[in-house]
């Protein structure tokens, strides 16, 4: 294991609902294989999936960077897209700008960002309107009990 950087990066295509969720499935698979607690892994999956889906639903394309650090997991999702004009408003549960065809699929409930907040220890969002958004999440695994 030593010397091997525990870091991955995956591309996400905007509007590609066919492949949506595959990146988060990979993240989950990696954590499962490394033996992380299943309940913890399911929480990470929520945060990762919501961030991935926001690129699919709202942006043109993006990348999910995933790193296992000594103390925590870090997921950074950066995209090229419209950006978020009012982040505090976007964070409100139920707020969504998703168009009708996306809502019909069961997305656009305005729960994505709140779900990320609930399932992470740190959530930082930086966004430039007309350029894109960077979502940074830090999630600390439960300490092993012995």
């Amino acid at each position, binding site marked *: 294991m030593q010397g091997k950087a525990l870091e991955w990066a995956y591309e996400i295509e905007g509007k590609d*609902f*066919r492949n*949506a*969720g*595959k990146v*988060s*499935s990979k993240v*989950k698979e990696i954590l499962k294989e490394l033996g992380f607690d*299943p*309940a913890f892994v*399911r929480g990470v*999956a*929520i945060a990762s*999936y*919501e961030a991935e*889906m926001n690129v699919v639903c709202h942006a043109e394309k993006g990348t999910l960077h995933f790193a296992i650090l000594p103390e925590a997991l870090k997921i950074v999702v950066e995209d090229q897209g419209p950006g978020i004009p009012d982040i505090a408003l976007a964070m409100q549960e139920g707020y969504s700008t998703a168009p009708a065809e996306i809502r019909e*699929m*069961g*997305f656009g*409930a305005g*729960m*994505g960002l709140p*779900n990320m907040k*609930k399932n992470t220890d740190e959530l930082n969002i930086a966004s430039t309107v007309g350029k894109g958004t960077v979502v940074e999440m830090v999630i600390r695994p439960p300490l092993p009990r012995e």
Partner: protein
Amino acid sequence: MKLTELIRELALTVRSADKGLDREVKGGYASDLLSDVMAHSKEGDIWVTIQGHPNVVAVATLRDLAGIILANGRQPDAETVQRAEEEGVPILCTPLPTYEIVGRLYRLGIHGQD
């Protein structure tokens, strides 16, 4: 209760992952909003929805759900079936509407909360 028993008791049609039917169903969740299911479903739940597009498979996999019941006569898209086969997610269909199938699941002892 196992998926196989639910299929028999409720006359469900199996559309994918017929090798995964030995799985134990621990509870249930019903919703057509994917973020709601991500947030509130539990491992081992059977998920009742009318959404038949491929994204339901990702949600079921990420949350370790026991399977998906498509209510109201909804059928999965061809691509949904393919992805469900790949991921081993059982998709079961019923002509009954959501309210009715959930009621019957409850009567069989599949609850939403402990």
